[in-house]
């Protein structure tokens, strides 16, 4: 009996996995990526449900008698100058930071990927024009571009998302184009063309699906940098304004008390760092898992 089960185990190894299964299998062996994924899972669960179980009073309720108390059992992260519990504010702030990260990257995805795909697929003049524009666009440092966009649109949460998203468009154009270049001359693309399919059909149903892995990796890593950019803008006074518990804004508000109450800047920053690290770990793991060079 014992031998039998061992045999089965052995056989399992040779069972063919689907492409997706293979990627998942490799990802699972990467401890860093799994740690990142677990942290993100918890964060998402918190951010999505926080409204249901967290009493708003805990987040915005002021209690001046308890103001500026250091971390304790009662207030894990201490309290701010209005006596609000910093821990609950950080917990609630996860909604802002995650939402900003995702919406911003979504903005750059929907602009960057089609542009990159068109540039890579058609080549020649179209490619030159799009890539020159991308060069011009990326000549302006990303954070500066975001600042300019915010000045055009005005400061609000939505505009902050757009600004951060716009500033990371060039990365997506480049990544997509590079990926499309590697598949555009493949036989299946030629076959689709021979069948008389339209270019749009070929790009979206044949070319892009085969370019997904670098785009997914780029997306994961970009969410990380978008969260940092957004909090940087808040720090520069161009993002979300302090009463809202966005992490960058919390940190900036704490800066005024840095001399005696450094925990007010420490904890929100720690939250940003852990979140961003989780995205980076997962992105790195995905990059390794999807790398065709490593395929056995």
């Amino acid at each position, binding site marked *: 009996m014992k031998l039998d089960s061992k045999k089965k185990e052995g056989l399992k190894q040779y069972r063919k996995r689907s492409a997706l299964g293979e990627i998942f299998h490799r990802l699972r062996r990467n401890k860093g990526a799994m740690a990142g994924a677990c942290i993100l899972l918890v964060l998402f669960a918190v951010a999505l449900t926080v409204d249901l179980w967290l009493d708003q009073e805990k987040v915005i309720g002021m209690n001046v008698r308890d103001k500026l108390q250091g971390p304790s059992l009662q207030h894990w992260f201490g309290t701010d100058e209005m006596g609000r519990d910093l821990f609950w504010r950080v917990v609630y702030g996860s909604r802002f930071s995650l939402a900003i990260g995702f919406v911003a990257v979504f903005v750059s995805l929907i602009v960057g990927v089609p542009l990159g795909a068109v540039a890579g697929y058609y080549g020649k003049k179209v490619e030159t024009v799009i890539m020159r524009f991308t060069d011009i666009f990326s*000549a302006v440092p990303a954070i*500066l571009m975001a600042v300019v966009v915010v000045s055009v649109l005005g400061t609000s949460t939505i505009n902050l998302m757009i600004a951060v998203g716009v500033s990371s468009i060039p990365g997506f154009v480049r990544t997509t184009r590079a990926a499309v270049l590697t598949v555009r001359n493949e036989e299946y693309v030629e076959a689709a063309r021979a069948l008389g399919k339209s270019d749009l059909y070929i790009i979206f149903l044949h070319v892009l699906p085969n370019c997904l892995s670098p785009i997914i990796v780029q997306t994961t890593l970009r969410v990380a940098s978008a969260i940092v950019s957004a909090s940087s803008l808040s720090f520069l006074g161009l993002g979300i304004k302090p009463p809202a518990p966005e992490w960058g804004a919390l940190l900036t508000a704490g800066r005024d008390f840095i001399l005696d109450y*450094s925990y007010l800047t420490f904890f929100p920053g720690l939250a940003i*760092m852990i979140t961003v690290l989780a995205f980076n770990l997962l992105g790195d793991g995905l990059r390794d898992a999807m790398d065709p060079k490593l395929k056995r």
Partner: protein
Amino acid sequence: MGKYIVKRVIMLIPVIIGVSLLIFIMLDLAPGTVLDQIANDYTPEQLAALEHELGYDRSVFYRYGMYMWDLLHGDLGTSYIYKAEVWDLYMQRLPATLLLAGASVLVSIVLSIPLGILAATKHGSLTDNASMVAALLGLSMPNFWLGLMLIIVFSLNLGWLPSSGFKDGFRSLILPAITIGTGLMATLTRTTRSSMLDVIRSDYLRTARAKGVPEKTVIRKHALKNAMIPIITVIGTQMGRTLGGSVVTENVFSWPGVGRLTIDAVKQRDTIMVTGCIIMSVIMISLIQLLVDITYAFVDPRLKSQYASGGGKRKLARAAGGGQT
């Protein structure tokens, strides 16, 4: 070689034209003009005259045309906020930025290259994983937070280093350089590691080891030198990016660099100042890129012959590839 440099300079022109047009249009869309900022210093009549003189009574393209005409004559224009030449203002701030960029990249090199080599030589081990996580940690910390934490520990509590400004020379450079350098670490460590990994498995390293060359020499002389090209590429890119102004870090440490100059100018709608700063940083970045390209030839003699035969950019780019995208 000379031909190559000229070609690179010519390629810069459309970028400058495009970037300045982009900035002009975007700042024109933003509410308010530079005139609102200085309105209190002038009488209404003077202001009206100034409005006409600066072209604010006409379209943005007219102003852009005026700017380009000046630029063609080598004039970056005048900032009406500071009432001074943009060129002079920029040059005042440039040394601080250059110093900080150089120091930050140095910090990044000193931390990353040994870490990358260590990770590559111990590939797949715990050390490898730990060094990659350490590098990622540097990337994941928001610059301003790391800066503030360093200030809390080293300035406020220990009192070892100044927390802001530029006055204490070298001592005031340390904290901002560490702040930026740590952020640059991740990419450089990763590049060093993967580039070393490519080389470490090569035949000539095996030959060297077979000859009895000590392992230290094998890594340092044979492996690292051949792995250098992608590493230099990344260092160049990072130097360029830091030169564009590390807006946030400059803000934390009240560092008198170009990043803050540019951001303040955006806030004050000082279009001419913003455009001038960005044009200058574009020029600086491509200068560094050029320098990097020339360095390749020194590091890798195989590339030198390509310069001589006018192999062009494509070959060079391919040779330099394998770095990071």
